[in-house]
């Protein structure tokens, strides 16, 4: 599916069916900081998006995403396979350090199993996603 991020003017190609909540987490967008729009309809976190969908993620925070502002000029053209690169341990894989992400809850199960745990490399695979899965996020 094609995901257009506004006002950053970036387009991302995402492969594989997934929930809106998971899509936002993969793109480093905090819940309730962006509207997810498919055609003329808003989508909630539990809604599923498919490969042939055209999605708009429109930031609602004044100033847009702090670390990712790009509001003029032609749309960004980037080709980085985010998930695949991170899983292979590639040192050039994009870090989540600059992305907006929720605070971790302290202690217990939530911290140990947080998908973006302190090491960053131990991100668990999504349910049904095998090691050789074609799922991934490509920045266009």
């Amino acid at each position: 599916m094609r995901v257009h991020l506004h006002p950053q003017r970036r387009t991302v190609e995402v492969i594989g069916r997934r929930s809106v909540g998971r899509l936002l987490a993969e793109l480093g967008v905090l819940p309730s900081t962006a509207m997810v729009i498919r055609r003329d309809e808003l989508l909630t976190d539990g809604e599923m998006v498919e490969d042939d969908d055209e999605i708009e993620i429109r930031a609602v925070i004044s100033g847009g995403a702090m670390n990712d502002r790009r509001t003029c000029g032609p749309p960004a053209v980037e080709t980085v396979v985010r998930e695949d690169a991170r899983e292979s341990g590639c040192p050039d894989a994009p870090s989540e350090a600059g992305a907006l992400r929720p605070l971790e809850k302290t202690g217990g199960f939530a911290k140990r199993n947080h998908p973006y745990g302190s090491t960053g490399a131990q991100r668990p695979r999504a349910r049904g996603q095998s090691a050789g899965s074609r799922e991934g996020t490509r920045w266009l």
Partner: protein
Amino acid sequence: MKCTRCKAKAEVHLRAHNAGFCRPCYLGYFRRQVERAIEREKMFHPGEHILVAVSGGKDSLALWDVLVGLGYRTTGLYLGLGIGGYSDRSHDTVEAFARARELPLVERTLADEGPGLAVPDVAVSTRRVPCAACGAMKRHFFDAAAHEGQFDVLATGHNLDDEAARLLGNVLRWQRDHLARQRPVLEPTHPKFVRKVKPLYLLSEYETAVYAFMRGIDYIVEECPNAEGATQLVYKDVLNRLEAASPGTKHAFVKEFVRTAQALFADDAARGVPGECQQCGMPAYGALCSFCALVREVEAKRARRAAAAALAGA
């Protein structure tokens, strides 16, 4: 997810309220929230004439739209800040909004008020942060327009995120005088001031954006280019992380401050009764109001620069 009210398919999930809404129920929810805020804080009543400050963004246009929908008598006020293409686009957006709904709109442009008064020029010539210069000028022109037009109330589109970020900034530095004035309603302290109100102060940016989207309001998605790096954005980012970990944090932070803590700072608001500016006649705490002091500074810097250029040419 299903709508909390009618059980139809929900289009929006409000984590802070643990509720989902379909489109018709959400629009009703949003209007009720604004109505309740107006009544609870006694912001204004139906007979009063409201000047709505509009920038072309989602908050101010959503506010204007909902006030019109609730039957209030409103007039829009647009102030052209002279920030290049951004100001041009915001002007076109506001004008199109008002024209489509046949609403009265007052327009002022900073560049027309005097040479070098566009926000970027003032920021350069006075070496101020653009947002500081912009805020001082906006306050002056909003007050002046409300007084000249004999409006009863000035309404702005400040939302929950704006108020929470401002509150966090004020608390981090314990700015007691600022905390004393952080209220959803500011009563006038001078006959030339009007009551200032923020009917969206408990509605988040997400909620106003959803309202604007559902109502088909065409607003400026891009934010002011000068906002990049602004401290308020850092505070908003921190608050959004807290909100993601604990939904409802921002709402409780602002609502409980206004309900329980704000009154504790009331004594710190006492700045005395303002006099009048010798230059423009608007209320001022010194000989000149902050706007006229700014204009004088700009003029002095321009004169100095012109003299230096003339010397270099000779």
